[in-house]
């Protein structure tokens, strides 16, 4: 019995571009066009797209950090109004792509993780929760007093995950969580995300351009191009038998290893 957690209804977002050299009135950029998407509790959904596909815009709208031009995003049936729903922060959290820039370089690790707890007025012992969450992402509690530049890329991403999970969200959005990490570290982080979202019953939305990352973690995949959903469905089915030519192009473009066995 799966309940609907997040839903996008005819979601569109258009931007007015700054007046260019032509100077004649403002051009429009259709970042997202009439998108529909249903995400149920416990789902693991992957969003695939290249630059300009609209996936970044979608993420901001799902987080309630932006207002749609038309259509709506609903969280458990309630329509999101940007800036007017502080409680949403507690429910929907995000892990960003680049751990170097998503952590304030002037703050200690413990302060970084404490931030959502303070801002969202979480009623539990903050210090205990910080320790708890550091444990769950596999970091030593001694890291509390370190600064981001003292940590490796993989460790920083673990901090970012800890920060996202601290307020016990219902939904976790991971935006290219391993793209900026070294190849050998990637799978550890993916395993961590999978294990945590499983054990904590968190719904996962994973955005990536890397199909193997999506295949590793997600049951469902949504393929986007130029602001529109071109294909969606069960991950295995879509990747094995892509219906849309763009999906096919993405799949063929992946460089392959030579056969070894």
């Amino acid at each position: 019995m799966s309940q609907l957690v997040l839903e996008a209804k005819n979601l569109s977002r258009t931007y007015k571009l700054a007046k260019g050299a032509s100077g004649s009135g403002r051009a429009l950029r259709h970042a997202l066009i009439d998108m529909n998407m249903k995400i149920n509790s416990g789902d693991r959904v992957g969003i695939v797209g290249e630059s300009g596909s609209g996936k970044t815009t979608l993420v901001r709208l799902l987080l309630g950090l932006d207002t749609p031009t038309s259509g709506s995003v609903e969280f458990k049936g309630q329509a999101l109004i940007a800036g007017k729903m502080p409680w949403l922060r507690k429910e929907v959290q995000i892990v960003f792509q680049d751990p170097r820039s998503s952590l304030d370089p002037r703050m200690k690790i413990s302060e970084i993780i404490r931030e959502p707890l303070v801002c969202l007025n979480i009623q539990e012992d903050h210090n205990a929760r910080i320790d708890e969450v550091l444990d769950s992402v596999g970091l030593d509690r001694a890291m509390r007093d370190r600064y981001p530049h003292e940590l490796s890329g993989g460790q920083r991403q673990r901090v970012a995950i800890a920060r996202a999970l601290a307020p016990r969200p219902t939904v976790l959005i991971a935006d290219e969580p391993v793209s900026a990490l070294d190849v050998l570290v990637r799978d550890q982080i993916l395993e961590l995300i999978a294990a945590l979202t499983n054990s904590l019953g968190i719904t996962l939305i994973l955005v990536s351009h890397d199909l193997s990352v999506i295949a590793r973690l997600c049951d469902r995949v949504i393929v986007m191009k130029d602001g529109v959903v071109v294909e969606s469905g069960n991950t295995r089915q879509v990747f094995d038998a892509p219906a849309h030519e763009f999906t096919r192009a993405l799949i063929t473009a992946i460089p392959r290893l030579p056969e070894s066995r």
Partner: protein
Amino acid sequence: MRKAMKGNVSLIAGSIMVSITFALLILSFIWTPYDPLAVNPEDSFAGVSMRHILGADKIGRDILSQIIVGSRVTLFVAALAVTIAMTLGVSAGILIAVASRRYQSPMIYAVNIALAFPAALLAIILAAVYGASTITAVTAIGLATAAAVAQVTRRTAHGILASDYVLAAHASGASTWRIIRKHVMPNLRASLLIQASAAVSVSVLAESSLSYLGLGTPPPAPSWGRMLAGSQQYLFVNPLLAIWPGIAIVIVVLGFNLVGDGVREVFDPTLRRSDS
């Protein structure tokens, strides 16, 4: 951090110069060779001697004493002007940076217009209305410098606000005020320190210029700028009268400039070292 300060020539040299200046300031309250205002007609134009270490001016006032006490005006005006400039400038800069798109453009234009006003012009206007005084000088310099501080602060704050960690703070539920307090201000620290040291040297120079023009602290309080003005007509007769206050001004301005440079050096390599 300390290692970065070790070979830092700018910081060391600058600090020495700044210390000399403050030493003069403290000395001015404890002891001066003569009362700087004491007129000794028999010592008129006395050269460098045991009696007057740096010589005496036309009416026999000891130059060294004037320089020592003159530091009071200079540093007082600079300190006050910089305080005004930093408080107003940083607040304005941050407010504009966080303002919504619609209001930002006109505000930035306003700052640019304010920037076009030189301190001297402001000082003349204020002096014309209220009569020249230390207060008018402070106000004029403070406001003029505030515009420059506002502009630099706005740009730096804008960069910070565009960063991923500020976005993460938003996603964590932080209010705009909290983001300013906890993310923007701390990351502005380096920029502000540098701006403050630059502002001090600008203020000192500005005060000297205003005093020279007669728009600053009125007589009889000794002021380096006025000493320069007064010594102008005797330049070929007794150049030392102009050189001593000139050197004093140079030491203070250069000192604070070097400290600012040194501070920038300290912060830059640390930032670069954050990635292997």
